[in-house]
């Protein structure tokens, strides 16, 4: 049985915009607009893009912190079954589609409720960007780390402290730290506490939402190495959301590049860095400042800002900023297509030429 740990299909998350006296629904912010993404067990997928491109929203939708507007999220489901259900949902006959919907109900994380959802939450965890905000300032470290254990009733009350000590040891903290409050720690240590809390329920999948962006360079290296070590030790799967491309390069096996709610390119890290296919990926990679004054590279400077996701550009969403724009880019939206084999996909009309 082959299976993807997480399989996201056509996921959409719209935020309504209301206006007028009656707060009428006037438009949607299309934060995530049709994303397909699959994570194999034990891999680390880096999700990169500019702020406002929907990468955090996508992560939170997978966690069910936000309920997605449409789409399916399969967690630990058999691939063959997922494919057959997806085929049903795509079929032209309404009865077939209804059958697909009924079948997917038990498998789709997006539609789960109650105890089934609670059980899954054990396997899905998250580490947020800023540990100063994600840790309750009025709770002791031992309570913070124990909270998931208590909430999920995973260990007996008398064993909780032992487990907490064990968790703190795995992230490089000691028992001295148990009876302290988060403000007594430095940023790096706080992030370690957040990681210990995420590990408490022995999850399979952890969403890393910019876990190192708020940290200093020297501490960032410590946390990255820790995350790598933990991934090997516990066989974890990461979805690593960040805008720092060199960090993603260091830690992830595959990269997905998002732009304005859609994935524009996806592939193995080394290949994407060596030969980016999408013009946006190229601009993004060329904009990384390289810590080496000897190498002077050709930079692609994109003009303008990311467009408003309430009213995304027609056709290819990147076309107003793209240097290689043609008529077709303005009218038709490119779909993700396989490129060069090796699991690379790209959504661009002209990737072969440019």
């Amino acid at each position: 049985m082959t299976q993807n740990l997480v399989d996201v299909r056509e996921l959409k998350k719209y935020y309504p915009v209301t206006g007028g006296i009656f707060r009428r629904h006037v438009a949607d912010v299309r934060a995530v607009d049709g994303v397909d993404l699959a994570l194999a067990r034990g891999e680390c997928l880096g999700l990169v893009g500019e702020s406002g491109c929907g990468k955090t929203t996508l992560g939170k939708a997978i966690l069910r912190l936000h309920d997605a507007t449409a789409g399916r999220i399969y967690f630990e489901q058999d691939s063959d079954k997922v494919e057959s259900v997806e085929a049903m949902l795509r079929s032209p006959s309404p009865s077939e589609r209804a059958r697909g919907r009924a079948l997917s109900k038990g498998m789709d994380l997006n539609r789960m409720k109650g105890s089934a959802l609670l059980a899954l939450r054990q396997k899905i965890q998250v580490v947020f960007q800023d540990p100063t905000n994600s840790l309750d300032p009025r709770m002791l470290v031992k309570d913070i780390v124990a909270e998931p254990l208590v909430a999920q009733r995973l260990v007996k009350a008398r064993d909780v402290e032992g487990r907490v000590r064990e968790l703190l040891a795995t992230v490089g903290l000691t028992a001295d730290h148990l009876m302290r409050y988060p403000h007594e720690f430095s940023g790096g240590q706080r992030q370690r506490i957040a990681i210990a809390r995420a590990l408490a329920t022995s999850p399979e999948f952890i969403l890393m939402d910019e876990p190192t962006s708020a940290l200093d360079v020297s501490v960032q290296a410590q946390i990255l190495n820790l995350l790598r070590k933990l991934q090997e030790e516990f066989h974890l799967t990461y979805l690593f959301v960040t805008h720092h491309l060199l960090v993603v390069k260091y830690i992830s096996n595959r990269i997905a590049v998002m732009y304005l709610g859609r994935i524009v390119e996806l592939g193995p890290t080394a290949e994407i860095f060596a030969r980016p296919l999408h013009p946006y990926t190229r601009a993004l990679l060329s904009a990384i400042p390289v810590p080496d004054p000897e190498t002077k590279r050709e930079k692609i400077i994109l003009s303008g800002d990311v467009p408003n996701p309430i009213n995304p550009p027609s056709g290819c969403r990147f076309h107003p900023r793209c240097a290689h724009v043609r008529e077709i880019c303005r009218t038709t939206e490119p779909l993700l297509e396989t490129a060069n084999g090796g699991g690379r996909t790209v959504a661009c009309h002209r990737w072969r030429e440019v």
Partner: protein
Amino acid sequence: MSTALQTLVETSDLHTNFYTFEGVVRALNGVSIVVNRGETYGLVGESGCGKSVTVRSLMRIVQPPGRIDSGRIVLFLNERDRSRGIEILQRTETYMQSIRGSDISMIFQEPGAALNPVLSVLDQVGESYRLHRMEQMITETLAGLEGERTAMHRNSPRRAVRRLQAALLKAERRGLQRWAALVGRIDNELYLLEDRQDVEALARKESLNRGRDRARPRSGLASIARRVPLLRRYRRPINATIRRHVVELLRSLGIPNPENVVRRYPHELSGGMQQRIVIAIALACHPTLLIADEPTSNLDVTIQAQIVELIKDLKRTTISSVLFITHDLGLVAEVCDRVTVMYAGDVSETATVRELFRGPLHPYTAGLLASVPKVDQREELSMIPGAVPNLIRPPEGCRFHPRCPKRMEICEIQKPPTVEHSRGHWVACHLYPGRGNA
């Protein structure tokens, strides 16, 4: 080129402390940096290393409970001052106000917090012109009025209005000119007295400083007119002049549709656009030194690339020196000519960018360089153990010694002197015994 290496600003042995309830935070522990004319100078370090405090001390905008306790900051601004700089710690706040935004200006980090949410872009960018370039604005306005008046019919009543406006503006300009002349005289005398420390000179200095603080641009006619309704409208054409300048400035910074942007408020703009507005405020009066305090740290890489290109362009065209503060070593490599690495309020190492990246001397610099992921990173990232120390009780001796892999006994006792290891490459570490204290 000899002119390229003239000192513009120099700080020596600067101590800035913050007197908090928990104790005294010794944020700067004797910082000495030199920014030359025509160079881009980088200040790198982790958060809390004192890089922002250094430039805030330089601008004298350290906020309480912080205080500059000792040290010197010398500014070499114009031709007259070059033989000997102006020591700005001895000058008054009003003197600093005349320099800030005009000769030295600063791009603050986090544009969202640096901009005032209740003022439009026009008001915020135009403020620099109002404060520092009023005379020029009035002159330009007068020229415009003159043109308008001659185009009008002889007996038109609006012509009389224009004439009245022009008269009042001229009166205001006279007031400004008188004030500028007075302030110039006082500054000149203060400059001559600067080195003298005898009682007589000190008393004279104090009275001069008081006189400078009290001096205001005054003009009887204009100040009455400003209090009379309807009559006070004479200043309206100045607004149009300022608006024209602001629009022009925004356009030169590559902001699309500046006529429209000028009317907007900060929250209506994107992060990159806000940062450009902050840059526009800093550049309005063509400063000699531009301080950029993490100008891109909250922006996306593509926007960061745009802003960095912009600053590089400006460096080539309008401004003489840039003091670039960042924690991103990649940016330093791209933008700067010379760099200083700071750690916990100390200057660790100063060198040209090329030399620093090729042969870092200080163990902290080396560790910092090694802990950044490279483009071709294969092996595990090396890291510096521990974390930045608390500056209320900083480590004795060299402040880096608890984290240093090459720690020696002397490091725990004595603060290492800064020595010139090779030409232009300064380092403060006991590994490099120098020829005495520098």
